[in-house]
């Protein structure tokens, strides 16, 4: 099943994810038998092209982070295929993964736990370079200063420890670290969610600048539809581990097909007092859980094409 259609067909996608499945076993009892399974990611497929931002949105627990972590080879997928620059990563030898890791970086949600508290900013920035042995210590240090400048921090900050920085500054340092190896792909998992609106906007602007300059492919994970609308080229909506709607940003926002996408859009507070919502769609309180019995077999619902760039999953009956 090909769920994704590139923006510019002419180019080769940098990342091709096909039928990715990641589940977590829940063990219980004395002998640790599998009492349940979290179907965190079910049959997810998408492409990301160089210089493009794919936004992944959805409620908490729907599996966004797991997609990111599986893509980054931090979680082990159960099945599926992940190709980076045409090369399969799942089950690949170490060198392939190492080469991939040089070219793909991740930025996390919590700026307070993303930096090693016992390393200076400089050490944190240099560490990835050390790992991949790029250049001498002097060149690495020069590069660290350069990176810091790129995220609009002063080189004076190099000697400081993370605790001396605000959340926004830390997030910028994390981005600088992600840039250290000139990556071709950045995965930003809720990277701006914890920031103040003003800082959030700055960080997003920075990311967009960097992406434009360096033709970085960006997987941008967020639950904030308003932010996503601004940054994304394409949007994928996740619900209970599946992508229920994927398509070009404008198409998805202006013409949401899946009920869940509509619900998401309708709950976004509109930052305009003149447009206060009157009645909203009735909603159940609980967020559904992706936890299943061990013998659960997921039902696969087909995807329908809405337009050349827009697909939606069939809604389950009942």
């Amino acid at each position, binding site marked *: 099943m090909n769920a994704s259609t590139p923006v510019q067909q002419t180019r080769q996608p940098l990342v091709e994810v096909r039928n990715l499945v990641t589940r977590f076993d829940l063990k219980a009892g004395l002998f640790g038998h599998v009492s349940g399974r979290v179907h965190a990611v079910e049959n997810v497929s998408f492409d990301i092209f160089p210089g493009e*931002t794919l936004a992944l949105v959805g*409620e*908490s627990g729907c599996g966004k982070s797991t997609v990111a972590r599986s893509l980054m080879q931090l979680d082990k997928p159960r099945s599926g295929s992940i190709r980076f620059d045409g090369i399969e990563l799942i089950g690949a030898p170490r060198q392939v993964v190492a080469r991939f890791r040089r070219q793909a970086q991740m930025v996390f949600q919590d700026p307070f736990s993303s930096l090693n508290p016992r390393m200076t900013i400089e050490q944190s920035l240099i560490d990835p370079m050390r790992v991949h042995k790029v250049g001498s210590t002097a060149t690495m240090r020069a590069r660290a200063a350069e990176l810091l400048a790129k995220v609009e921090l002063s080189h004076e900050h190099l000697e400081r420890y993370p605790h001396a920085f605000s*959340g926004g500054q830390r997030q910028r340092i994390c981005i600088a670290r992600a840039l250290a190896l000139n990556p071709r792909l950045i995965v930003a998992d809720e990277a701006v969610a914890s920031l*103040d*609106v*003003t*800082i*959030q*906007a*700055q960080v*997003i*602007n920075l990311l*967009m*600048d960097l992406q434009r300059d360096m033709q970085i492919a960006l997987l941008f994970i967020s*639950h*904030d*539809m*308003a*932010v996503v*609308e*601004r*940054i*994304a*080229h394409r949007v994928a909506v996740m619900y209970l581990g599946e992508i229920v709607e994927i398509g070009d*940003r*404008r198409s998805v*926002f*202006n013409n949401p097909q899946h009920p869940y996408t509509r*619900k*998401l*859009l*309708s*709950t*976004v*507070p*509109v*930052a*305009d*007092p*003149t*447009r*206060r*919502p009157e009645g*909203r769609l009735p*909603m159940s*309180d*609980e*967020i559904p859980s992706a936890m299943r019995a061990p013998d659960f077999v997921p039902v696969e619902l087909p995807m329908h094409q809405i337009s050349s760039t827009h697909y939606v999953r069939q809604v389950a009956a009942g």
Partner: protein
Amino acid sequence: MIPAKSSTPELPEDVILAVEDLEVSFAVRSRASFRAVRGISFTISRGETVALVGESGSGKSVTAMTIMRLTEYDGAAITGGRVLMRLKDGKVADLAKLSDKRVEALRGSEMSIVFQDPMSSLNPVFTVGDQIAEAVVHHQGKTPTQARQIALNTLKLVRVPDAERRLDQYPHQLSGGMRQRVMIAIALACRPSLMILDEPTTALDVTIQAQILDLVRALQQEIGMSVLFITHDMGVVAEVADRVCVMLKGEIVETGTVYDVFAKPRHAYTRALISAVPRLGSMADKDAPEKFPLLVFEPERQIAEAGK
């Protein structure tokens, strides 16, 4: 906008709460005392919703907690100003000067607060019903049975489905949204005239946030209490507030009706803030992503402006 100061606590008829030149400092005894709130003033009228917005660390929570007189537990002290409140019996009290005992009597019955994180704000070892009824027993001298009935009614009021059963459940058995409703129920139990909500939806999922906002709006219409709503989400402000106070570094830099603040922000910081707010639909006709049209707020300019 700010009522004239007077030596005896007086308030205009429709004003529930008036904060006057409030100043709060942390670690007052040590040399490096920190002024978290620096002489702010604002009022809340009967039935009104005032939103307090501002960046993280600007002093919103400290303001709220000071009104409840809870900051002193964190080592802060009111170093100036007054917090005048109209009580249910019509008298006006200066919360900043009341004895601990008096304040205890007012907390929960005259004013109440809902905190950000419903996961940690409920005591895990007591049932939901007990936690709601507790304040009722304490403030209104009701018997446990009566208090339980009140707790049940309050739970129904905050639209908790299956309220009877929930009454005997423990917090960990509830979902996040439910817990926040329980928190609101606790705050409502004694029908205070002022309810403070300190970022009540930040910890919740987007879809749940909408429900809580709806609930707050509905409750306010039903009971007609005043609300001080603290948030940093301008979208939320736009949805719930009548008036907005914008805080920056412990000061209120701008106050106005929600329409004015959004349409004609006067202070540079407010303008920068509004410019950074993502608005759904603003990109509806754009093909490619676009950067935020950020107005950069520079403190120096603000100082210059303030000097004018």
